[in-house]
C-alpha cells in the first residue's frame, strides 16, 4: 500500500534562511497602514503614560531620592544637602554616642516583636482554623466574627485598645471583678514598662490572626481528603493526623504567614506611635518608630538623612529575612 504524502508547505519562507516557524505572516505595509499602526501605538502609550509617570514619580524617584538622602545631612528646609558619605550609617550602627545606643535598644525591642508576633500568630491561627474547619453549624458566622479584627483594625481600634488598657479601663475592671485584682495594672498596661511591649505584641497578634486564620483555612479546605482518610485507615488518631499530616502539608502557608508578620514587625510603627509613642520611657521604641521620629519628630534637627539611612538598613534586613524565608520554603516544598 502506498501512501501519497503531500509535503507540508513552510509557513514562511525567509530570504536569510532562518526559521520562520511560529511567526505571523506580515501583510504588505502601505504608508497609510504604517500611519495607522503608529497612531494606534501612540494611543496605547498615551493610555499607559499616567501609570508609567506615577510609577516613575512615586516609585523610582522617591526610592532614588531616599537612597541619596541617606548619604546626606538635611532638615527638610535647607536649600542644599550636606553630603556626609557613609557617616549616617556608621553613626546609627556604632559610631555616634547619641544615636547608636538608641538604635541598639530599638533593635532589641524590634527583635522581640519579630519573634513573638509571628510565633503567636501561627500558634493561635492554626488551631483556630482547624476548629473552624471542623465546625458544621454557624461556620460562616464564626468566620466573620474571627475575621472582624482585621476588618476593623486601624487607628480608631488602637485608640479603643488604649481605653481598654488604661488604669480605669475595661481590662483592669474585668480583672478586679473576677477576683484577679493582683493581675491588674494600677498604672495601666501601657504605663508599666514591663507590660507595655508584651501588651502591644498581643494587640499586634490580635490584628494579625484573622488573615493568618483565613490562609490556614484555605489550605485546609483545598487539602486532599484522601490523605486524611489514609492516615485514619493507618490508625492515626485526630492529634496524630493534625501534627503528622495536616501541619506538614500547611508548612508553605505557614512560611508565608511568618514572612508577612516578620515584615509587619520589622517595618510597622503605627501602633507604637499611636498607643505609646515609644514609651513609657523608651520601653516600646522600635526601629520603624525611630525612623519616623528621626524624620518628623526631631524638632527640625537635620536628621532626615539618618532616618533615610535607618530605612535602608531596615530594607536590607527585610531582604535577608525574605531570602532566608525563600530558602526555607524551598526545603519545605
Amino acid at each position, binding site marked *: 500500500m502506498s501512501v501519497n504524502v503531500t509535503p507540508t508547505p513552510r509557513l514562511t519562507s525567509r530570504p536569510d534562511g532562518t526559521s520562520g516557524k511560529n511567526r505571523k505572516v506580515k501583510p504588505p505595509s502601505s504608508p497609510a497602514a504604517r500611519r495607522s499602526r503608529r497612531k494606534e501605538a501612540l494611543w496605547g502609550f498615551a493610555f499607559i503614560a499616567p501609570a508609567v509617570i506615577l510609577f516613575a514619580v512615586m516609585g523610582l524617584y522617591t526610592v532614588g531620592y531616599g537612597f541619596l538622602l541617606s548619604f546626606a545631612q538635611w532638615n527638610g528646609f*535647607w536649600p542644599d544637602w550636606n553630603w556626609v558619605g557613609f557617616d549616617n550609617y556608621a553613626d546609627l550602627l556604632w559610631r555616634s554616642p547619641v544615636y547608636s545606643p538608641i538604635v541598639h535598644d530599638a533593635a532589641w525591642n524590634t527583635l522581640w516583636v519579630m519573634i513573638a508576633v509571628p510565633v503567636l500568630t501561627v500558634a493561635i491561627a492554626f488551631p483556630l482554623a482547624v476548629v473552624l474547619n471542623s465546625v458544621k453549624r454557624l461556620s460562616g458566622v464564626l468566620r466573620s466574627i474571627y475575621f472582624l479584627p482585621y476588618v476593623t483594625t486601624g487607628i480608631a481600634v488602637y485608640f479603643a485598645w488604649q481605653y481598654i488598657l*488604661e488604669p480605669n479601663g475595661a481590662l483592669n475592671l474585668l480583672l478586679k471583678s473576677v477576683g484577679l485584682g493582683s493581675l491588674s495594672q494600677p498604672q495601666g498596661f501601657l504605663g508599666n514598662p514591663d507590660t507595655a511591649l508584651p501588651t502591644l505584641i498581643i494587640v499586634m497578634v490580635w490584628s494579625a490572626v484573622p488573615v493568618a486564620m483565613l490562609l490556614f483555612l484555605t489550605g485546609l479546605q483545598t487539602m486532599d481528603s484522601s490523605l486524611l482518610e489514609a492516615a485514619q485507615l493507618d490508625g492515626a488518631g485526630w492529634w496524630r493526623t493534625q501534627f503528622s499530616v495536616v501541619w506538614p502539608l500547611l508548612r508553605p502557608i505557614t512560611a508565608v504567614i511568618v514572612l508577612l508578620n516578620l515584615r509587619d514587625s520589622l517595618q510597622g510603627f503605627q501602633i507604637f506611635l499611636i498607643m505609646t509613642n515609644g514609651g513609657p520611657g523608651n520601653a516600646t521604641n522600635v526601629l520603624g518608630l525611630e525612623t519616623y521620629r528621626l524624620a518628623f519628630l526631631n524638632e527640625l534637627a537635620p536628621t532626615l538623612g539618618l532616618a533615610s539611612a535607618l530605612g535602608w538598613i531596615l530594607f536590607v534586613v527585610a531582604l535577608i529575612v525574605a531570602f532566608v524565608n525563600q530558602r526555607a520554603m524551598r526545603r519545605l516544598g
Partner: protein
Amino acid sequence: MTGHPRRLARRSVALASAVTMTAVLAACGGTGGGSPDELEMWTFKQSHVPALEQAAEQFEQETGITVKIQAITPDDAFLTKVAAAARTNDLPDILEVHSNGDDHTFGGAGLLEDLSGVVDEEWTDQYLPAVADEGMVTQEYYENSLTPGSKWLGVEEGQRFSVPLTIGTFGIVYANRERLAEVGYTEPPATWDEFIEMLDAVGQARPDDGGIANGFRAPSTGLEWLLQPMAYGMLGDQPYRDLFSDDPAANWGSENGVAALTEYGRIQPYWTPGTQSLSIDEADLSFAHGESTFDVGGTFTLAFLEANGFDPDNAMTFAVPPPEGAAIPDMGLAPFALTGLSVTKDTHNKEGALDWVRFLSQTDVAQDFARNALDLPPNDLGPNPEDAVGPVLGAMAASLSSDENAYHAADTSYRPNAYDSARVGEVLADFTPLDRGDPADAGRNLANLIESYWSEQNR
C-alpha cells in the same frame, strides 16, 4: 469616518494641553498672594484661630485686605506641610511660628523675609522690654548656627525673622481651686515642700482624682516644666547650668544633681495613675474633666482648659516653687516669646502682610487677641494687667518676673547642640513616674546621656 477620530484626537490633545498648562500655572502661582487684597496665614494653634479671625475682620474694615486663617495641627503636621509647601512655592503669606525655633530654621533656609529693616524702635516699644528682641538672630544664636548639625544653618547675626505674638513660660501648675478649698488651701504654695504637703492633703482626701497630671508621653515635659524650674530655684543660676555640663563634679551625677533629683522624687506618690501614658492634651483633659486635681503646663494651657469646659475662675495657678532653703527662694518665671509672626518669601503682597503683622502688634489689638485666645500678648499691659486682659490672664501676667534671678526657660545656652530634651526626659521619666531606680541612678544616667551629647558636639 476618518475625520472624526482625527478631530477627537486634536480635541483631546488640546484639552490635555489646557489641563497641563493650568496645573503648571497653578503650581507656579502658589497660594501666597493670590490676590493683592487677600492674605493667607497658617498657624499650628487651633485655639488662636477664632481670635485671629476676629482681628482679621477688623483689619479688613480698616484696609480692605482679607486675611484667611488656617490651622494645621499638630506641630509635626504643620512643619511637614511647611516643608512641602516650601518646595512647591506654595507657602502662605504669613506663618505663626515657634519663636527662636522654627523662625530661625525657616529663615536660615531662605523661606522668610528678614524683618530687621522694617521692625524699628517705634514698633518694638509696644512690647515688654524682656521680649522685644525675640525673633532676632543674636550673636549666641548665630554662633550656634555655625556648629555641625545646627538646625539654624544659614542665619546671619542681626537678622529678624519674626515678631512676638504670644509670650509666656513653662512651669505653671494649675490646681482645682474648689478642691483645694475643701482641704483648707486658699493660697498657692510658696515652697516645694508646701506644694508636696498640698498634694498629700488632696491625695488623702481624694484618692481617686486628687493627683497631679503631666503629659509624659512628651517626656521632656517632666524635665522642662517641673524639674528644671525647681532645680534652678534650689541651686541658683550657675550650679543649675553646671548640671548640664560634662563635669562629673557638677553635673546631674554630682552631689548637687542627686540632691535636686531627690527633692523632685518626692512627687512620686502623687501622680495621677497612668500619667506616664498621657499626651500633653490628654493630661490637660484629665484635669479639665476632674480626673486630676493638679496639672503641669504653661501659660498657654489656660486656653485649652477653657476650650474643654474648665471654668478659668476655678483655676489656681502658680509657678513651680523652689524648696525651703533654696538659693533663690523668691524665684519668678521670666517670660519669653512662645510664638511669633513671620512673613514668607513667597508672598506676593509683602506690604499687605507687613501691615497685618504690624496691626496684630498694636497694643489694643493685641489685648483683644489675648482676651479672645486666652494667651498672653507681648505688649506692655501697664500696671493693672487684669484690666487689660481679664482677671485670670492678668494674674498670670502679673506673676511673670523680669527679675535677673528669674528662671528663663528659653535660655538653653548651657546645653550641648545635639541635646535632645525628649531623650533626656525619657531617662528622667524612668526615675519618676516610672519609679525605676533611685536619685543616684537617675543622676548617673542623665549625666551619661548629656555627656554623649557633648561628645557628639566635640566629635
